C-alpha cells in the first residue's frame, strides 16, 4: 500500500499514470481502478463512482495466487465535501483493509488527504503516505531547458547568476514544478537589446493576492481541497445556488487567481504560496506539505 501526496496545484495523476504506463512486471499485474480521471457531471453520482467499482470484483492478478497492483492516482476526484460525498472513500478504506492481497497505489492532493483525515481518519488506515519530492533548481533548469533555448544568453556573470535564478525559482515555488514553471513564464520579458524576437528572464517574484472577502476564501479553500472542480460541483459542495456563486467565480477569474480549463476550475499555481498563508491566517485548515 503506497499513497503519494502532492500539492493541489500539482496534479499527481499524470505522473502516476506515466510511471505505470511503462509497468511491465511479470510478477505483478497493474490495473487502474477507475477508467476516468474526472468526477461525473452529476454531483450526486460522485460517491457512487468509487463505490460501484469497489462493489464489483477487483481486477485479478495474472494467476490466482498472484498479487495485483491497483492504482487510483486521483483520490481527490472521488469525493465531494457534501453529505455522503465521501462515501466512496469510506468504502475504499474498508475494501483496502479486507483485500491485503492487492497492492494499492493511491495519489492524492495533500489538502484532500487532510480533509479526509479529519472526517474519515484515513491516515489511520493508510499510514504510508509519501510526499512528492521537491524539485530543485538544477532539475528545474533541465526540465525547462527545451523551451528556454530562445532566451537571451546570460552575460559575463552568466553561469552563476543563471544557477541562482533557477534555485530562486525552485525556492519560491516551494519545490513544486507547476508553481516554479508559472513563475518562470511570468518572469519572461522582451529583451530591449535583442529586438522583438528575444526574451530575457527577470528576477522571479510571487504575485500579490487581491483583497479577498470571506466568500472568496471559502470558495478557494473548497477548490484547493478538491483540486479541480466544475462550477456545479463547487456550488453543490458549498451548499449554495449557482447564481450566488457565479459573481465571485467571475471576479476571481478576472483577478487571475483561478483558472478554468475544459469546464474545470482550479487555483493558479503561482498564487498558491500566498494563498496558503492567507487561508492559514484566516483560521482555515491547510494541507500544505
Amino acid at each position, binding site marked *: 500500500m503506497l499513497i503519494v501526496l502532492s500539492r493541489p496545484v500539482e496534479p499527481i495523476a499524470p505522473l502516476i499514470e506515466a510511471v505505470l504506463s511503462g509497468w511491465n512486471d511479470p510478477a505483478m499485474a497493474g490495473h487502474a481502478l477507475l477508467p476516468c480521471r474526472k468526477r461525473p457531471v452529476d454531483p450526486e453520482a460522485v460517491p457512487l463512482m468509487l463505490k460501484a467499482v469497489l462493489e464489483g470484483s477487483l481486477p485479478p492478478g495474472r494467476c490466482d495466487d498472484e498479487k495485483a497492483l491497483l492504482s487510483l492516482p486521483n483520490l481527490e476526484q472521488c469525493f465531494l*465535501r*457534501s*453529505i*455522503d*460525498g465521501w462515501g466512496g472513500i469510506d468504502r475504499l478504506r474498508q475494501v483496502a483493509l479486507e483485500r491485503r492481497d492487492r497492492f494499492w497505489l493511491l495519489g492524492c492532493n495533500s489538502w484532500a488527504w487532510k*480533509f479526509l483525515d*479529519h*472526517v474519515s481518519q484515513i491516515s489511520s488506515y493508510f499510514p504510508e503516505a509519501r510526499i512528492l519530492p521537491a524539485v530543485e533548481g538544477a532539475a528545474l533548469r533541465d526540465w525547462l531547458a527545451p523551451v528556454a533555448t530562445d532566451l537571451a544568453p546570460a552575460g559575463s556573470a552568466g553561469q552563476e547568476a543563471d544557477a541562482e535564478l533557477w534555485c530562486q525559482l525552485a525556492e519560491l515555488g516551494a519545490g513544486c514544478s507547476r508553481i516554479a514553471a508559472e513563475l518562470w513564464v511570468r518572469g519572461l520579458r522582451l529583451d530591449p537589446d535583442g529586438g522583438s524576437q528575444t526574451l530575457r528572464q527577470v528576477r522571479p517574484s510571487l504575485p500579490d493576492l487581491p483583497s479577498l472577502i*470571506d466568500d472568496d476564501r*471559502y470558495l478557494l*479553500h*473548497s477548490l484547493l481541497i478538491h483540486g479541480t472542480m466544475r462550477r456545479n460541483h463547487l456550488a453543490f*459542495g*458549498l*451548499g449554495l445556488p449557482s447564481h450566488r456563486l457565479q459573481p465571485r467565480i467571475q471576479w476571481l477569474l478576472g483577478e487571475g487567481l483561478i483558472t478554468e480549463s475544459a469546464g474545470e476550475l482550479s487555483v493558479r499555481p503561482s498564487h498558491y504560496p500566498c494563498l496558503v498563508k*492567507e487561508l492559514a*491566517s*484566516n*483560521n*482555515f*485548515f491547510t494541507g500544505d506539505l
Partner: protein
Amino acid sequence: MGYLSLTRPRWLLLLILAAVILPGAVQAETTKQRILADVTLGKSIGAVVAVVLAYGSIFLIEQLTAWLSEKVARRYRLLIKQSVPFLKGLILIITVSYLLDQFLNLTQNNLLALTGTLAVALGFAFKDYVSSIIAGVVSLFEASYRVGDRVRIGDHYGEVVGYGLRSVQLVTPDDNNVTIPHNLLWTDPISNANSGNLEAQVATDVFFDHKVDADLVVEILYQAAYSSQYTQLRLPVLVVMEEHLWGSQFKLRAYPMDARDEFVYRTDLLMRAKRAFALHGLAYPNPSPALFQQANQRSCEDQP
C-alpha cells in the same frame, strides 16, 4: 455613539475632581502646604492641550483599530480589538497623572487628605458610577468579556464592540447597540461564547418522531457538520440526543471557523441536514396537544 459614551466619564471624573479638590484647597490655604498648586496661564494651556491630545488619541485609536481589525486576517482581528481598552486606559492614566501633577501639590499629607475627601464624596454621590469603573478595571484583568467576544449579559446577547470606562457596548444579531454598565459583573452571570478565541460552539437542534432511525439521524448530522465549509475541523463535532414526551431531540455541537458566522453556520447546517432528512423521508414529531400540555406541566414542575 460609543464614542460619546466613552468620553463622558472622563469629563465627569474631571468635574468631580474639581468639585472635591477646590473647597479642600481653599481650606488648606491656611495650612503650610496647599493642596492646589498655583494656576498659571502656561499650566492652563498645557492642561487644555493634554486633554485635547488625549481626546484625539482615543478617537484615533478607536477609529484606527476598528478599521484595521476588519482589514487584517481573522487571526489578528481579536488581538487588535482586545488592545483597545488597554490603550485607552493608558492614555487616561497618563493624562490624569499629568493634570494632577500640574494642579496639585501631591505630598504625602495632601494625598491622604485628598483621597479621604474623594472617598467620602464618591462613596455617597457616585456609588454606582465608581462601582462600574472598578468593575470595568476588574473585568479588564479577569477577562470576563473582551472586545470581539460574543457574550450574553442578562437578556442581551451580542458581540462586544466597545469597552468604555463605565460600560460595555454590544451589537446584537438584530444590529442593535446595547450599552451595559460594568457593575452588572458583580451581580449578573455573564456567558461568554468564545472567550477571546475565534471559534465559538454552535448548538443546532433538530426534532424527530420517536420511531426515527436514530443512527441515521446522528450520521447525517455529523456529515452535515463535516461538509459545511464554515466548520472548524480541528475542533470536535458532537451529536447528543434527548428524549421528550413528544419526540426525540438531537443536538449537533460544532464550531465555525469564525464565531461571527454563528447564524449563517447554523442555517447552513440545517439546510444540509434537512435535504438529507427529506431524502430519507425521516418523520418529524407530530405531538398531540395533550402531550404538549403534559410536557409543559412537567417542565413547570421541574423548575424550582
